[in-house]
C-alpha cells in the first residue's frame, strides 16, 4: 500500500520504522530529498518546496521539511530512531525534481535555487549526493521504499530506477 508524501512532509521507511512505500506526485520544481542508510536499510524523504525559510519566520518551524535550509537537519533527526544514529555518518543523498525551463532569471529559478541550497546543506553534513535526477522540463513522480530504492516516473518518459540500495546510478538524468 502506497502512502502519499505531500509538499513539506517527511517520511522514514525501513529499519525500526517498518517498510512502507511512499509516493510524491507531480514534484515540478520542488525537490524530493532522499537520505539513504544502506547498512540499516533505511530511507528517509523530505518533500522540499522552498529554498529558504527566512521569509516565513517562526511559521517555518512547523514545516521544516518544506525549506531547503532546514530539511536536511530535520530529516537526519527524524531518521535517528530508525537508524539508531543521530549524525549524518553513513548516509547518502538522492535528489529528484527541480524542474526548470532553461534560461530564467535566478529569482524565478525555483528548482535551481532549491537544489543549490540542498547541496550546500548536505555538504555541511558531509553527506555525498549519490544520485540526482534534477532539472529539465519533467514533472516527476517519485516512489521510494527499501526494497525498490528510488524510482522516478514522468509523463512521456515511463518509470526508471534512479537509486537502488546495492547499485547506485549516478548522473544528472535529464
Amino acid at each position, binding site marked *: 500500500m502506497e502512502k502519499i508524501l505531500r509538499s513539506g512532509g517527511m517520511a522514514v521507511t525501513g529499519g525500526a520504522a517498518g517498510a512502507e512505500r511512499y509516493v510524491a506526485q507531480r514534484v*515540478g520544481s520542488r525537490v524530493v530529498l532522499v537520505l539513504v542508510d544502506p547498512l540499516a536499510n533505511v530511507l528517509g524523504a523530505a518533500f522540499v518546496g522552498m529554498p529558504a525559510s*527566512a521569509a516565513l519566520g517562526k511559521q517555518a518551524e512547523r514545516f521544516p521539511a518544506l525549506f531547503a535550509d532546514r530539511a536536511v537537519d530535520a530529516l537526519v533527526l527524524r531518521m535517528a530512531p530508525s537508524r539508531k544514529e543521530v549524525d549524518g555518518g553513513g548516509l547518502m543523498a538522492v535528489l529528484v525534481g527541480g524542474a526548470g525551463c532553461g534560461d530564467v532569471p535566478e529569482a524565478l529559478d525555483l528548482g535551481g535555487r532549491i537544489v543549490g541550497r540542498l547541496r550546500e546543506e548536505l555538504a555541511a553534513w558531509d553527506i555525498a549526493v549519490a544520485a540526482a535526477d534534477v532539472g529539465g522540463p519533467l514533472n516527476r513522480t517519485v516512489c521510494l521504499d527499501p526494497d525498490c530504492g528510488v524510482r522516478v516516473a514522468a*509523463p512521456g518518459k515511463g518509470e526508471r530506477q534512479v537509486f537502488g540500495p546495492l547499485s547506485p546510478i549516478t548522473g544528472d538524468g535529464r
Partner: protein
Amino acid sequence: MSVLKSIVQAVRDLPPLSASCLELMRMFDDPSASLTDMARVVERDPQLTANVLRVVNSPAFGFGHSFNAIDRAVTFMGEQRIMSLAIGMCFNDFYAEALPGYGGAAGELWSHCLFTAVAARELAPLSVAGVAPGLAYTGGMLHDIGKLVLSMLMVKKGGISLPAFEEGDVKSALELEKLIMDGDHCEVGRALAKEWRLPEALGAAIGFHHAPAGAPTQWRALAYCVHVGNLMAMQQGAGTGLDYMRYPVDADFEAFIPLDGERYDALHTAAAREYVQMTKAMAG
C-alpha cells in the same frame, strides 16, 4: 476543411459558458461595476449560489458556522475571495475534461488554471502598473482555454509528443502547436474570447500570456502577471501534460513586476496555501 476553418468551427462548437459567468467576467473590466454588483449576479444564479455556498461552508475554510447567503459570506471572506470562488466554480465542469492532444489527464487543466489564477492575483498588487487582482485572477483562470479546442483537433494529428520536442529541436510548446496545427492555443483562446465577447483585457491576458511584451500597452502588465503566474503553477507541479515547462520566460518581467528571490518565494508560499485551501473546499 482547412485547419483554420476547423479551429473556428471547434471554437463555435464548445459548450457555452453560463450567462452569470460571462456577466461576471465582463464586469471585471467595467470600472462602474462594484464587487457588490458582482455579488448580486451570483445571487441571481441559484446553481452558482449553491455551489459557492457549498465551498464556503466546507471544513477547509473552518469558519465554524454555516452561511446561507452570499452577502453573509462576503462579510467574513471578503468580496474578492468570494468572486474568485464564483469564477472558479464557473470553470469547474468546463475544465474537467482530459487534454488528450497534450497528454494531459482529466482535472489537470483545472488545477493548472486555478493555480495560475491564484498566483496572478498575488502578483497583481506588486505590478508597477496597478493591475486589478480580480482581473488578474480571471485572466489566469482563462489563459489556457484555447487548449480545450486545440487538444481535440491535435489529437487527430497525433498530438504533442516528447520526441517531437527532443528530436525536432523545438524550443516551446507554442512552436510545436504551430507545426502541428498551423495555430497555437493563445490564438485560439483569443478567438474564443472574441466569440464570447469577453473584455479586451481578458483577450490580451489569454492571447499574450506566452509573449507578454506583445500585449497592447494598457494590458501588458496584466499579461506579465499571468505569464509569471503560469510559470509558478508549473513549478508547483500543476502542468497540463507533455508541454510541461516548454515555456520561454520573458526576462523583462522585472520592469512590470519587481521581484527578487525572497519575494518570489513568499508569493509561491501564499499562492500554494490558497490553492490547497480552494481545492480542498471545492472537492467538498
